């Protein structure tokens, strides 16, 4: 009788173990670690100094110890700056503009490269980056639907309590104004050249491009 009970208890524990291990395996496989290239290399590739890169990395590492940002974390971080509204759609488009290789995660190098363009790049580079942001499907053209998505995402960040009260067709009007200005040949899509040309003609845009030089 005792032998039977002994075998039974051991059988039970063996049955239980495999399911426990499965959970553990899952837990451990989520630890993806990525280490960035050396400081010197990054300094050469970007327009930042070593100190600036250090500051950037420390912050990056604090938020994402694994070395990569995934879209969820990105959205959460970005949403904290816009507590009034919903920044998730705009963060989504931003994320895909940062994630050049479309791997679904942004490494420190991608992050720093994009920042280097945005903060220290030439006007041409900045405008091209913005074009890339607007071009959601990355086909080289901006059409009205893509622009509508982007503009809607921006208006979403305003939230509910705005003054004056937000109307349903405000984004559409906004997009129409934009296309009126940017689409030179009125074919319904904006190409990179049209975009660059129109932006360079506009003094306001040129002036405000210089506004954000001194972020660091």
């Amino acid at each position: 009788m005792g032998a039977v009970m002994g075998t039974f208890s051991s059988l039970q524990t063996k049955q239980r173990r495999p399911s426990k291990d499965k959970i553990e395996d899952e837990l451990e496989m989520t630890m993806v670690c990525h280490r960035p290239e050396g400081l010197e290399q990054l300094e050469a590739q970007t327009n930042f100094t070593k100190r600036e890169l250090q500051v950037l990395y420390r912050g990056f590492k604090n938020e994402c110890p694994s070395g990569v940002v995934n879209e969820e974390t990105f959205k959460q971080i970005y949403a904290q700056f816009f507590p009034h509204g919903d920044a998730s759609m705009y963060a989504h488009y931003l994320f895909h503009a940062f994630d050049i290789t479309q791997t679904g995660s942004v490494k420190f190098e991608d992050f720093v490269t994009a920042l280097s363009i945005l903060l220290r790049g030439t006007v041409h580079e900045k405008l091209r980056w913005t074009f890339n942001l607007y071009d959601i499907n990355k086909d080289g053209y901006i059409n009205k639907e893509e622009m509508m998505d982007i503009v809607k995402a921006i208006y979403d960040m305003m939230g509910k309590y705005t003054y004056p009260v937000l109307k349903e067709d405000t984004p559409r009007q906004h997009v129409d104004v934009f296309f009126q200005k940017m689409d030179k040949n009125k074919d319904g899509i904006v190409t990179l050249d049209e975009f660059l040309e129109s932006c360079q003609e506009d003094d306001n845009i040129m002036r405000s491009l210089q506004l954000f030089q001194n972020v660091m």
Partner: protein
Amino acid sequence: MAAGVATWLPFARAAAVGWLPLAQQPLPPAPGVKASRGDEVLVVNVSGRRFETWKNTLDRYPDTLLGSSEKEFFYDADSGEYFFDRDPDMFRHVLNFYRTGRLHCPRQECIQAFDEELAFYGLVPELVGDCCLEEYRDRKKENAERLAEDEEAEQAGDGPALPAGSSLRQRLWRAFENPHTSTAALVFYYVTGFFIAVSVIANVVETIPCRGPARRPPREQPCGDRFPLAFFCMDTACVLIFTGEYLLRLFAAPSRCRFLRSVMSLIDVVAILPYYIGLFVPKNEDVSGAFVTLRVFRVFRIFKFSRHSQGLRILGYTLKSCASELGFLLFSLTMAIIIFATVMFYAEKGTNKTNFTSIPAAFWYTIVTMTTLGYGDMVPSTIAGKIFGSICSLSGVLVIALPVPVIVSNFSRIYHQNQRADKRRAQQKVRLARIRLAKSGTTNAFLQYKQNGGLEDSSSGEEQALCVRNRSAFEQQHHHLLHCLEKTTCHEFTDELTFSEALGAVSLGGRTSRSTSVSSQAVGPGSLLSSCCPRRAKRRAIRLANSTASVSRGSMQELDTLAGLRRSPAPQSRSSLNAKPHDSLDLNCDSRDFVAAIISIPTPPANTPDESQPSSPGGGGGASSTLRNSSLGTPCLLPETVKISSL
């Protein structure tokens, strides 16, 4: 390679002298090692506590933060040390790993915090040494289970947040699953419960003998036969309600196949089926026996109560999870019964007029004795039989008493887990509400800043309120960011009060005569529009007059749902709860880009690189937003035309 191997490398290389005579080809030249400053002492400053170690020690594990070039990102050239803004107590364990090759788990620290430190320093949790591995795994699993419970509770108790556009099906299902969400659901819940009780009681009362009509001799009949019509009506009513409920559930279920296979639906079917079978079975003698058996299944209706009682569900779940213990109990009992029945049979074989006629007949005696019931309808008479009978009863106590505590402890654990989950769910709502309240400080800071005339021209600096001037750099830049967004969209942030006033004004304007509404709109909110977006103001004023209140309310609802998606603070993202402006440290980084989100919180002021930060509040930001700003809303950027009227 293991920790100490590197130390033995010079020895191994020296021992290569033994190969020289045998080598048939010239050996390759030795690698030119730079002036090896191998015995260099590195200083690692973790939050003020200085740790000093050899460079070699850290180089032992080149795939970690400290062993690779990643630590150069944390190097402070001024002080010549590596600075980490982390927990010094935990760092001790990390450094010991480099020294000894074994990672130990601190007993008194939270396992989550320890995990985060490991993730930061690039150490994989497998490296935890054998001495601490068991405990580490147990604690981690406990935590993971608790987190999973929390998530389940959040998803399950997602009561009020149902999207507005849900279909009738979805709402029905939600009403069925969480009866507390609406009064109708609650009423339905109680009505079905009542009818289950009525049905069960009717089944029971049906069999009580009532005194028949005055007859000599008075015959006793079960009540069911005496009032067949009444009972039949009651049964029909209950079955109709149960059928209706089942069909409604079937209709509302998101996954019908899964619903059909679930236990509760099977119970429902078994509860109502006998009635329908009884309807269609003709009342002849052959089948009526089977029909009577079917009536037994009506008692299954009592199981329908498990939807109404959580305790019943826990009991059922416990039994399911203790299936192996129960199986063991059954098996060992069977074995013991067979053994003892055989023994008793052969012991009592000799006696005359004995009850132990066969071994199966002795089973009854064994069961009754082992469970200590002792009816006394079968007793041994021989001495041998009595001896074995007593052994039988003693061992019965043991066999039954052993698995029972396991089942009981399982039940207790599951029950307490449920209690805890319920309590936590209740507390979670309060917690989230408090967190939301704290975070609203950030939201209101910008509105307050605007009210205090912060957006006025800075030339009239003397009139600005003190609070406006004394904002930290983070606040300034964050407010600039929000201000840029306002300019992009030509709308302003307001608080709920002003918004509802404006909403009221719009809806009122829509209802009164068109002409007056146009003028009132043009004067009121329209004035802002005309100054802000001159091109579109005229178009918009006309559109305002034409739009009915319902349209605006529709868009409000849309925005409502969008804005209503409040995200709970992320467990990984450290800066979530600390994003209050006055809590953050003073820095030179703008918060517009998520760059600053990341930089702003951890970096201490002393470390900021250049003091060349322009003092104007407008400094810093991501160029991308400005681009959108300007390209989409050109008129909005002209500072002169924007005169924001007082809110």
